[in-house]
């Protein structure tokens, strides 16, 4: 369910890539193309393989099998050419130096650097330019990492849980910068646990689970895939649970007291059939699944299937 027609050149592509640590299959047969200008969110529960996938893309690890290419090159070559800017989940910083110095270093090492002051302004660290890096707060460190990732004109920006620890202002500034970057034709790939971020920012969402790609599409498509709508109502008459479970297009059903909660692939048809059961539902609500519920539904269904 690709929404963008693949242009001639992919920014990055994974071809049947696998990576295991001992018996843990962190990435399992991943095939994926990223396209220019796309903002892609990578979702998945803890240990799903998000960081491993990004590490592979960045050449920090080598795959056991499969091929990864970034701008038609190996990840290492793409990085050496300055095509990729990245923020790691576990990216330490150089100790014993000032903020301005470390940002200056990143700019100096980049083949197509931006001016240091511009980079610091954008990351919101101009005021702390003279502080020692070891004395920063968690959120300030995160902003410095952001500055390092945007020290030069990269064509692909890779971010592993970038806004963890940032305050609201920093987070908003961060995403507005990222939107700007994407607007200039850059591809942005980010892993996150904040589903609102994915919903609001990404034009494509990937759901990873135990190293496998479960879903790939727009946020709306993911929601649809998960069993698009929720139906909730109260029952005021005796009714057979089996009859309820017999309703068409059911994805799931739960009963608590007299309250019935249903997820349905076709809410209209389900509600129609519900009236047909001869029992009048009270307080009927039909609503769409948020990305968060969709995510939970997709990963839980997979969990149930594989265990």
């Amino acid at each position: 369910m690709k929404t963008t027609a693949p242009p001639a050149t992919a920014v990055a592509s994974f071809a049947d890539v696998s990576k295991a640590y001992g018996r843990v299959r962190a990435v399992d047969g991943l095939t994926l193309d990223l396209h220019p200008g796309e903002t892609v969110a990578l979702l998945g529960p803890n240990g799903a393989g998000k960081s491993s996938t990004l590490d592979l893309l960045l050449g920090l690890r080598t795959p056991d099998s499969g091929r990864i290419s970034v701008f038609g090159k190996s990840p290492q070559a793409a990085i050496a050419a300055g095509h990729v800017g990245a923020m790691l989940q576990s990216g330490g910083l150089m100790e014993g130096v000032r903020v301005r110095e470390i940002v200056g270093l990143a700019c100096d090492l980049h083949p197509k650097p931006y001016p240091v002051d511009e980079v610091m302004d954008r990351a919101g660290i101009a005021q702390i330019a003279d502080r020692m890096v070891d004395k920063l707060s968690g959120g300030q460190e995160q902003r410095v990492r952001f500055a390092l990732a945007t020290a030069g004109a990269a064509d692909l920006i890779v971010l592993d849980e970038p806004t963890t620890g940032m305050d609201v202002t920093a987070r908003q500034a961060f995403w507005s910068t990222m939107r700007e970057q994407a607007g200039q034709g850059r591809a942005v790939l980010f892993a996150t646990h904040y589903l609102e971020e994915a919903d609001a920012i990404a034009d494509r969402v990937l759901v990873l689970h135990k190293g496998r790609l479960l879903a790939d599409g727009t946020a709306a498509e993911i929601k649809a895939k998960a069993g698009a709508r929720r139906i909730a109502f109260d029952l005021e008459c005796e009714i057979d649970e089996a009859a309820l479970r017999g309703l068409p297009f059911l994805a799931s059903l739960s009963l608590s007291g007299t309250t019935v909660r249903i997820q349905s692939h076709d809410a209209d048809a389900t509600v129609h059939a519900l009236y047909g059961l001869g029992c009048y539902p009270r307080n009927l609500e039909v609503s769409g699944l948020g990305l968060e519920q969709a995510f939970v539904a997709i990963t839980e269904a997979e969990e149930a299937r594989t265990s």
Partner: protein
Amino acid sequence: MNTLIKLEITRTLRNKKFMFFSVVYPAGLFLVIAGPQGDSVVSGTGGLTMGAFYMVAMASFGALTAVLMGNSERIAKEREKGWVRQLRLTALPGRGYVLAKIASAAVVSLPSIIVVFLVAVAIKHVHLAAWQWLALTGVIWAGSLCFAALGVAIGYLANGDAVRPITMIIYFGLSILGGLWLPTTSYPQWLQDITTWLPTHAYAGLGQAIELGGAPHGRDVAIIVGYFLVFAAGAAWLYRKDTRKA
């Protein structure tokens, strides 16, 4: 790359505690070891006095300590914290990283060498010609770079808790076998045959030749340059290859 070298040097100089101990420790050790010894000649060295022998030995040993310990532990720590992973996402080539680390080590080893010399002159009354002082400083300093490269390589081979014991074993092994603590002439012949191939033996040999009024032996220079190239290339390779989680 030059920015990285500058930054590595700057932050080493900012690390006052490390600088202080690295500079003071070899001189202190020189006094402890050579202090109580008379001015007798060390056998098998071609006529060097105890003071002169230990001056070169401890200057070399001190420089080695500063660069080897400093590099290996700091690099292992940087890898653990993930700074090296971050650095690998830049266009920095492996040799740039190794060069910067060697340069920052050189900043520490130079003053440590000079302080040993000053103490030797003031307290043990070692007399040498002006050119000898300059040449000694130059070769011992340059030779220390070999061990700085070794330090980078160890920092890459060993992780977290293992790095200190591994560095210690290599460090004491090389120092003692190479004759930085005792003249190797006191060792059995078979051991002496082996020790002449050690970088530390060549390192001590550089300074001793100058003290005796000659140029360093070509063999010693070749050995230490050879080791330097192997260590530096190995370190650069390890930097690029390091795929372990930080």
